[in-house]
């Protein structure tokens, strides 16, 4: 069984973001990079599945500038993935190009029985690559999955979280794409032996351009980066609790006009 897990490297949640001089990207100097938190759930689920299915293999795959993103694959290998596939690309390629590159690489590697991804990358918050990848591979998908089990050979039952705390219980036939939500599992830490072993694992490099990704596959462009506008200072309400509360409600009604 071939299990693929797609992951993206993103700035750590605490990182301060500075805009680059071109105003079309961020200044990457000094940024601490991590695996997108939702992709960690995907890696964990892939490794768990491999452990439950002897002979199965996990391929961790990512798209991005190779000098920086290799680290994220090493981490996935240390968590238990067997092989890494790095698709070298420019910074900031869009979701369409990314999905197209992933689909081509997975096909070239012989195809997947199942592909795990995170439901969203916290940098551009697009929630798009998993579904686009499924489309390019012509296989079904479920996103925002917080429960996953194998019910038969190539058949899975999953729970998808939707609005209002509701959950859809879905039966899906493989091969398929499963996009992980929080709650799916508890990602393991890479252990020291895991990290040592990871150094010896295969990390294959491919080029997005040789996978058939064209300049015209960039469909969405990002321009004119700006920082959030400076916020007016907070108005602290004074006095005892009763008077604070009266002032607050009055301000909400008469000043902010939100009641």
């Amino acid at each position, binding site marked *: 069984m071939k299990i693929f897990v797609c992951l993206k490297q993103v700035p750590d949640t605490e*990182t301060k973001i500075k805009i680059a001089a071109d105003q079309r990207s961020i200044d990457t100097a000094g940024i601490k990079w991590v695996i997108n938190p*939702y992709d960690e759930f995907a890696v964990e689920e892939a490794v768990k599945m491999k452990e439950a299915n002897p002979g199965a293999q996990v391929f961790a795959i990512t798209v991005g500038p190779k000098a920086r993103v290799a680290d994220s694959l090493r981490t996935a290998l240390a968590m238990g993935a067997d092989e890494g596939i790095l698709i070298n690309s420019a910074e900031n390629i869009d979701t369409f190009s990314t999905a197209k590159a992933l689909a081509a690489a997975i096909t070239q590697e012989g195809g997947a029985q199942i592909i795990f991804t995170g439901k969203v990358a916290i940098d551009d918050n697009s929630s798009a690559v998993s*579904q686009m990848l499924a489309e390019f591979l012509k296989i079904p998908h479920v996103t925002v999955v917080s429960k996953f089990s194998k019910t038969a050979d190539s058949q899975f039952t999953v729970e998808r979280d939707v609005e*209002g705390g509701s959950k859809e*219980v879905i039966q899906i036939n493989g091969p398929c794409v499963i996009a992980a939500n929080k709650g799916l599992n508890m990602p393991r830490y890479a252990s020291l032996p895991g990290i040592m072993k990871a150094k010896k694992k295969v990390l294959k490099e491919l080029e997005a351009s040789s996978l058939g990704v064209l300049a015209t596959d960039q469909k969405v462009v*990002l321009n004119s*980066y700006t*920082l959030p506008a400076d916020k007016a200072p907070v108005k*602290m309400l004074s006095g005892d609790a009763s008077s604070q*509360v009266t002032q607050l409600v009055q301000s909400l009604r008469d000043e902010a006009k939100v009641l």
Partner: protein
Amino acid sequence: MSTILVFVEHQKNQIKRSSVELLQAAQKSGLKTCAVLFGTGVENLANSAAQNGAQEVHTFKSADFDQYNPEMFLAAMSDLLEKIKPSIVLSSASSLGKDLFPRLAARFQSGVASDCTELKIENGKVTAKKPLYSGKCFAETSFENSPIQFVLMRANQLPVSAANPSATTSAIDHTINKPDLKTIIQNVVKGASEKLDLTEANVIVSGGRGLKEAGNFKLLNDLADVLGATVGASRAVVDAGWVSHGMQVGQTGKTVAPTLYIAVGLSGAIQHLAGMSGSKVIVAINNDPQAPIFQKATYGIVGDLFEVVPKLTEEFKKVLNK
């Protein structure tokens, strides 16, 4: 003239506010505005769609579309796009919207701009504003090499004005050949809440570890009831098991943008702020004057939430005549 298609979502026989926002924005674009609705009885919403700007209303009113199934909706939307050939498709960035449209975009060799907060349509070209890195910066997004421009908007971002009460239209219904399904929705477990989802709510009352224990969320529920608000939470209390993950606001929870966000007994960690800093007015109630949430707040009360919140509930009751 080129066409703009709005994917209209509805609940309890009403078009959702988030979709009304999109219909009205589409109408202002000057393009031919079409709407599409799915599910039993949606023909009854055709006039409401027209009153908010739709010139043409398409429906898939078969009961097969009462529950979202990605393959069914994908087949239906693909057919419709082939028929009406829109140059722009708008949807809200709802669970359904985010699941369906990226895949549909890929099928039409097009891109999708997700999670946008501002929308400009000039001469048929979209420019949308989009937060990046959890709102730490913003970018303008636009399309190239994209036959259709797919845009997913966050709720509560666009203005809504009064509908035109005299507009009417009759729906054009469509059916599809049911594809051979590989995904089957076996069951839907309804969430406890009857309220609007956090992502659509206009008012949110959120609680954190300062509430001390799960039972004390009742204080927030009472406040929320008076305001017609939805209750949210910090990750600390979700991880503690006090409330469900569906209620978590933040980087690994929901991104929300209500008009009013009341943060109670939560510190305002950067990952929490990531999910709510787009709120228009933020009220912070915390007994620690140094809590970071005050730096993001519009109004702040330093005080004990157990004293402040019940008083606040009473005051709102009085002022709102409830």
